[in-house]
């Protein structure tokens, strides 16, 4: 049955409530890292980096099925998983940037992988098709041409990840009772 109909299903609701809390946790950890980047590199406001951002050509993760009017739960779940997988890889650039906060960044990567497999598990329990991403190997790191670009890249990855999580959170909350 399409996900929306399952909104009344108790297991599905338990899944939603658990992973709403999980998403709040991840958002809190991303915010903590954003504070570290601000304190360490004096990069705190996105509006000061619009020009350089064009230079870095940051690509956004597609989440259109998690927004009205084209909200579609199953497709939204897949897009959330795609995004979590992409951010898991991109966080490697943040790991390089903040070696003294490796623990927090690695926790974020673990949490992103866990949230993704929680969603996959739930989709499979509901008999939906899912993609299994390769083990969370480290993809090729972007070669930043300067420390400044690397710092701005790290800032933007975290800012985009925070926005991504906000959208995912609202989608889960939309389904939760």
């Amino acid at each position, binding site marked *: 049955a399409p996900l929306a109909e399952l909104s009344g299903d108790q297991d599905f609701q338990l899944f939603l409530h658990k992973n709403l809390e999980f998403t709040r946790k991840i958002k809190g950890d991303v915010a903590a890292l954003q504070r570290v980047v601000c304190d360490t590199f004096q990069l705190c406001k996105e509006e000061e*980096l619009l020009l*350089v951002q*064009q*230079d*870095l050509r940051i690509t956004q993760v597609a989440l259109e099925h998690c927004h009205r009017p084209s909200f579609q739960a199953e497709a939204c779940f897949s897009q959330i998983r*795609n995004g979590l997988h992409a951010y898991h890889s991109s966080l490697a650039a943040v790991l390089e940037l903040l070696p003294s906060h490796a623990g927090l960044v690695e926790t974020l990567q673990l949490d992103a992988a866990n949230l993704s497999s929680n969603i996959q598990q739930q989709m499979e329990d509901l008999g939906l098709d899912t993609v299994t991403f390769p083990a969370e190997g480290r993809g090729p790191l972007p*070669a930043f*041409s300067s420390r*400044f*670009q690397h710092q701005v890249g790290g800032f933007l990855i975290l800012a985009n990840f925070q926005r991504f999580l906000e959208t995912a959170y609202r989608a889960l909350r939309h389904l939760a009772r």
Partner: protein
Amino acid sequence: LLLLRLGGTLGCASVDVGSPVVLLGSAVTASCSVRSRLCRGLEGGRVRISWMLDNETVAGSQCCGTGDTEVSNLTLPQFNRMQAKLWCWVEWNGTKQRVGLAEIRAGYPPAKPSNLSCLLNLSDYGLTCRWEPGADSHLPTSVALKCSTSRAPAVTGCTPQGGRSHCTVPRRLLQLYRQMEIWVAASNALGTAESERLRIDPMDVAQLDPPALRSIQSVPPQTDCVALAWAVAPSSAHMELRCELRYRPPEDPAWALVTGIVGQAGTAQCCGLLFGTRYLFQMRCRRHSARGHWSEWSAARNHTTHEK
């Protein structure tokens, strides 16, 4: 899918400084070059460059770049911060945009380390050396304890952790019973420094464990003598030791001292004591070659001599 596809170019702006590490108080010059053709959104427009040192505006002089490159030069006559970020900004659509950064550090070359001394621990044969690091250079400085023997090139014996000024050379890097050269080497972006070289045989700086006084008995018939028995520490059982005995009544501040006792003997007599008096006894030893340090005094042992 990688979220970050880089422009593949050098980016539309760059900040160059004479050197990222300077002597504290010296001048710093920097230039910010903005290639408007590469900055999407800046094409052809008037480029106004400005500077900030951390959160403070500083004035640069923007003049004639070449072709589509605008350049602003900046001189900070006396750079007195340990560390600062020099930001290059550009005005764009009524906003100020950060387009370039140079991170500058200032400090001094490393001071010459001094007062190098070492002690060999006889339980693990690690050689622990300590030194005075001298004035702080305020710069990341790598410090290493170097050792060499006449037949082998210098190696790093150990590196102090967490900014400390001591570390321990493991047994496998030591040459026992032979002269070694040991010194401290420090280096940072502004220079290097070395301590005086210590020429020692690690065994000559062995920190001996104290002997243990086993028994003290009055020696009839001359009751003004006592016979002492002791055991040298197992870790120095193979060494020729010379020991010292000191004794005094508890209330007496001054110790009487007996020197030149052969460590391995294990027993000795001590005469000239008062009758019916309680005495405290302690012993310490060092290697006969008179090099190296005394052990600590043994645990005190007391004994009361016979009444007359």
